[in-house]
């Protein structure tokens, strides 16, 4: 069933990102488990991943991202922000909304609607659509959607090489300050058990190679194609393509299947140096594009969430982007700001060995 949400004059008025400073190399992980690091590096296209400090979590990452987004969305007054959503699969509380804490921390309370969203790695892009609807419907001037995760992976499992931490926030609205107009959006959703975590279990389960064709590609490709059809566009009409990045191979292949040259998808690829930031993944990739794209250029972004679904967006840069992008750090800053840790520190930060004494 095709859903349509064509929005005119509405788009991104501000964006902000955050990636924690610690990195662990896949060699470090492979060493512990006796894996062949080389084959993982080649197979996944990932060299290292971002690890949160012990005092960081999805909420803190969401706040930092949102604060950076608000710096760019400088025209937005707190009481004009009518909605806040935080999409994640690692909300710190099973019950207690991350969005409420973030809203309080960035000074948007109390007259605001808030909710946490979940749909694996596309929780925040779904929330962006909600913001678009609320703004277009005239219910509010602006809404903010934040995707942030401190992804968990079972020690020794292949996901350990890619499950990473990071986030990005997008302020949606209209008016003069729009830096990228959302020309159209489309979503594609089916029940596909490719990756899940039962309540009460600590680590997720994935279905191996099944996560490829029937899951990631089925949704990313079909969603993107449906958006093309809706808008009457093809890959040639786009200067950049950003896809969800569970590893470096999938998005490159998706690009190829959709008819994009590799040079259009590489500028948004962050996974080989940061890992898969889950709900932050496609949004961080998009931010990397917004950090350098020019007026008039067009971007396709298609997210993917296991379980499964994709949200596609067609975006067109305005002349406002140049002035606003300088107002908070680019993705590149966070990528270059890094410090390496070994597996023992990683185990400590990720609380793999349980807790000491009190906490």
């Amino acid at each position, binding site marked *: 069933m095709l859903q349509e949400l064509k929005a005119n004059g509405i788009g991104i008025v501000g964006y902000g990102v955050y990636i924690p400073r610690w990195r662990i190399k896949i060699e470090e992980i492979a060493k512990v488990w006796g894996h062949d690091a080389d084959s993982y590096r080649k197979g996944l296209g990932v060299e290292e991943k971002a690890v949160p*400090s*012990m*005092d960081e979590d999805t*909420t803190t990452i969401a706040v930092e991202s949102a604060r950076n987004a608000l710096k760019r969305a400088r025209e937005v007054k707190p009481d004009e922000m009518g909605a806040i959503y935080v999409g994640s699969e690692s909300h710190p509380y099973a019950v207690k909304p991350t969005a409420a804490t973030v809203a309080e*921390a960035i000074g948007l309370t109390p007259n605001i609607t808030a909710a946490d969203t979940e749909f694996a790695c596309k929780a925040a892009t779904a929330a962006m659509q909600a913001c678009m609807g609320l703004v277009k419907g005239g219910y509010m001037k602006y809404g903010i959607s934040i995707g942030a995760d401190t992804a968990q992976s079972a020690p020794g499992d292949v996901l350990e090489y890619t499950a990473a931490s990071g986030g990005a926030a997008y302020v949606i609205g209209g008016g003069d300050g729009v830096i990228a107009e959302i020309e159209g959006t489309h979503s594609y959703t089916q029940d596909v058990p490719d990756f899940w975590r039962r309540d009460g279990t600590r680590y997720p389960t994935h279905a191996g190679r099944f996560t490829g064709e029937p899951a990631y590609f089925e949704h990313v490709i079909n969603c993107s194609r449906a958006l093309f059809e809706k808008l009457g566009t093809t890959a040639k009409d786009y200067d950049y393509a950003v896809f969800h990045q569970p590893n470096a191979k999938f998005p490159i292949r998706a690009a190829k299947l959709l008819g994009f040259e590799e040079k259009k998808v590489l500028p948004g690829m962050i996974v080989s140096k940061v890992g898969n930031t889950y709900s932050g993944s496609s949004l961080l990739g998009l931010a990397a594009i917004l950090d350098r794209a020019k007026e008039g250029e067009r971007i396709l972004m298609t997210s993917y969430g296991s379980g499964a679904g994709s949200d596609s967006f067609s975006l067109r840069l305005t002349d406002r982007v140049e002035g606003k992008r300088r107002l908070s750090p680019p993705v590149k800053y966070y990528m270059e700001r890094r410090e390496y840790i070994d597996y023992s520190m990683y185990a400590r930060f990720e609380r793999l060995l349980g807790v000491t004494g009190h*906490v």
Partner: protein
Amino acid sequence: MSNSGIPQHWRTMRERYRLLGARCEKCNTNYFPPRNVCPKCRRRGRTTQVEFSGRGKIFSYTVINASSRAFERYMPYIVGLVQLDEGPRVLSQIVDCKPDDLRIGMEVEACFRKIFEQEDGGIISYGFKFRPYDNSWAEDFDGEL
């Protein structure tokens, strides 16, 4: 932690999240944490809420190697007195910085972090900490990866 009742934790939450203090409108002195009464003007003064920028300089620091129980898992960590640009001093942890790199006078900015987590499924407390101020990305903005 002793005294970590929920209402007490909640009452100081906003100040802790957003570095909210007070300014005395009569003598224009800034205070953190907020005060009901300006110690200089007392009843002749009037205090209003003010949100600090988060920018400041390190006034003193120490590295804690023996902490109370609630902070055991974070050891060693750095605690510092930060002189905010607006005047008041704040006691807070310094993060993203190696102990050897600490300097009195170092420029810092506020960030948002976990302060502690209560054991046994209790609450998580969030609030400000400070990290070295780094504006290097702004000087020559380069977004190309």
